[in-house]
């Protein structure tokens, strides 16, 4: 009977580490966060219960909604383009006749595995208004008369941040889609070819629908990723100019570790989670409606 009992208990022992982690480093902190969000705690000993005040303040705070809006704009600026590009690259790299696939695959993933800080620094250097190489080229080729202020106008700063994020993540999404493509049965393509379907039709009628789930996964991850962008906007423009690249997580960081408004910042994190849950549900709905 020894191993029978053991096999009844064993799974719980195996999965225990994760649930200890969940309790210690996610659930307890999260509940604590919810609690703090109802207080005016600023880091000193005493915290006063203020009810829904922080949430009220948040609801009427311009910068919070701006941060949500910024994330939405940045999302729209890069996610559709990135997914399309990633999909095209994945399809190209999935062609059996293409030489040097390993090299290409690696090349596209390199931006994702190098440090964000490093990538951001390089872009600061490239996009600099006065001595960045991009402006040098644009001026030299007479594309523009004045150097473009890539990092110091709200309009361009958002585009720059969106571009850096696209550059960093297109390869990663390509990998996921490429892995997804391996599971599409070859017969589907062969049948389509026999029927004389054109490449564009094959792409939209077979490839895209078959990858629906992977695309959903990529979109959900990109949404959460965009709303919690931190390093890129922080290094490139400190969330500016005029808060144009401030995301909810950047705001959360600023309010907590720079201004010490822990109560208010906790309200931001709770609101952020609710918003993410809402957006994820919305995307699940959108994708499942489109699937069949």
């Amino acid at each position: 009977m020894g191993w029978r009992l053991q096999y009844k208990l064993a799974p719980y022992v195996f999965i225990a580490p994760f649930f200890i982690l969940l309790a210690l480093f996610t659930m307890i902190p999260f509940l604590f966060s919810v609690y703090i969000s109802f207080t005016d705690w600023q880091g000193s000993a005493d915290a006063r219960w203020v009810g829904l005040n922080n949430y009220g303040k948040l609801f009427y705070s311009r910068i919070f909604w701006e941060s949500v809006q910024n994330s939405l704009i940045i999302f729209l600026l890069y996610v559709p383009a990135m997914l399309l590009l990633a999909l095209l690259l994945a399809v190209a790299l999935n062609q059996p006749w293409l030489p040097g696939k390993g090299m290409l695959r690696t090349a596209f993933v390199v931006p994702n595995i190098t440090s964000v800080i490093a990538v951001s620094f390089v872009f600061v250097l490239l996009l600099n208004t006065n001595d960045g190489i991009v402006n040098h080229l644009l001026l030299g080729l007479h594309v523009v008369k004045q150097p473009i202020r890539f990092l110091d106008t709200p309009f361009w700063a958002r585009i720059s941040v969106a571009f850096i994020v696209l550059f960093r993540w297109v390869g990663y999404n390509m990998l996921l889609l490429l892995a997804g493509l391996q599971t599409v049965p070859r017969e589907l393509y062969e049948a389509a070819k026999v029927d004389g379907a054109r490449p564009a039709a094959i792409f939209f009628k077979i490839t895209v629908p078959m990858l629906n789930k992977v695309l959903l996964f990529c979109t959900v991850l990109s949404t959460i990723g965009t709303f919690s962008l931190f390093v890129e906007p922080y290094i490139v423009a400190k969330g500016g100019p005029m808060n144009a690249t401030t995301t909810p997580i950047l705001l959360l960081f600023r309010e907590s570790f720079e201004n010490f408004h822990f109560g208010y910042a906790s309200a931001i994190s709770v609101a952020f989670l609710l918003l993410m849950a809402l957006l994820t549900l919305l995307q699940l709905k959108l994708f499942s409606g489109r699937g069949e």
Partner: protein
Amino acid sequence: MFPPKWIPSAIHWENFVHAWTIQSFNTFLKNSLIVTILCNIGQLISSSLVAYGFARFRFRGRNALFMILLATMMIPWDVTMIPLYMEFNMLGWINTLKPLIVPAWFGSPFFIFLLRQFLLTVPRELEESANIDGASAFTTYLTIFVPLMVPSLILVSVFNMMDTWNDYLGPLVFLNDASKYTLTLGLAQFRGMFGVDMTSIMAVTTIICIPPLVVFFLAQRHIVQGIANTGIK
């Protein structure tokens, strides 16, 4: 000055030495290595154990517990950074490397998910024969499943190394003394320091980028296969 000069006229290796000595990058390198290696060991052990528990046993509450695990994947840890800071502060861990290492020893939902997907594809007969031999669950895990998991473990290991090596927000929040800094934090410190030339920043940038690249090149072959194995379909 147009066209720009793409190829510099001379290579100055001493730039690297100079940049490396502006701040104590040797210390930062040591800290980064400690964090990365210890996280990786912990992550591999715990994630594979938890994945094994979920994939190879039937037990009450399994599906509900697994749904909880998946749901936590959606929570970026950033939202708990204030209470985590306070928790680590109570434990006396602030300004030590522990907050960056210890949580990794409990597994991570994404890696558990990846490994479980792989383990689900292994036929049942394997552990049935082990059961008849009377091997304990842990022995079965160690002798049968760990060897099978090696390619997937390489994938997890590579992802995890990149994440920890490149992590910035964690060190930024939990470390405040320069002697505890990791490389990324040291590099970021250059922004806003006066009199640091771009050459130095780029020199350090280059050095920081090399280890992940080397690791990735070495493991490249396993990665797409690993992702395909784990089958996010």
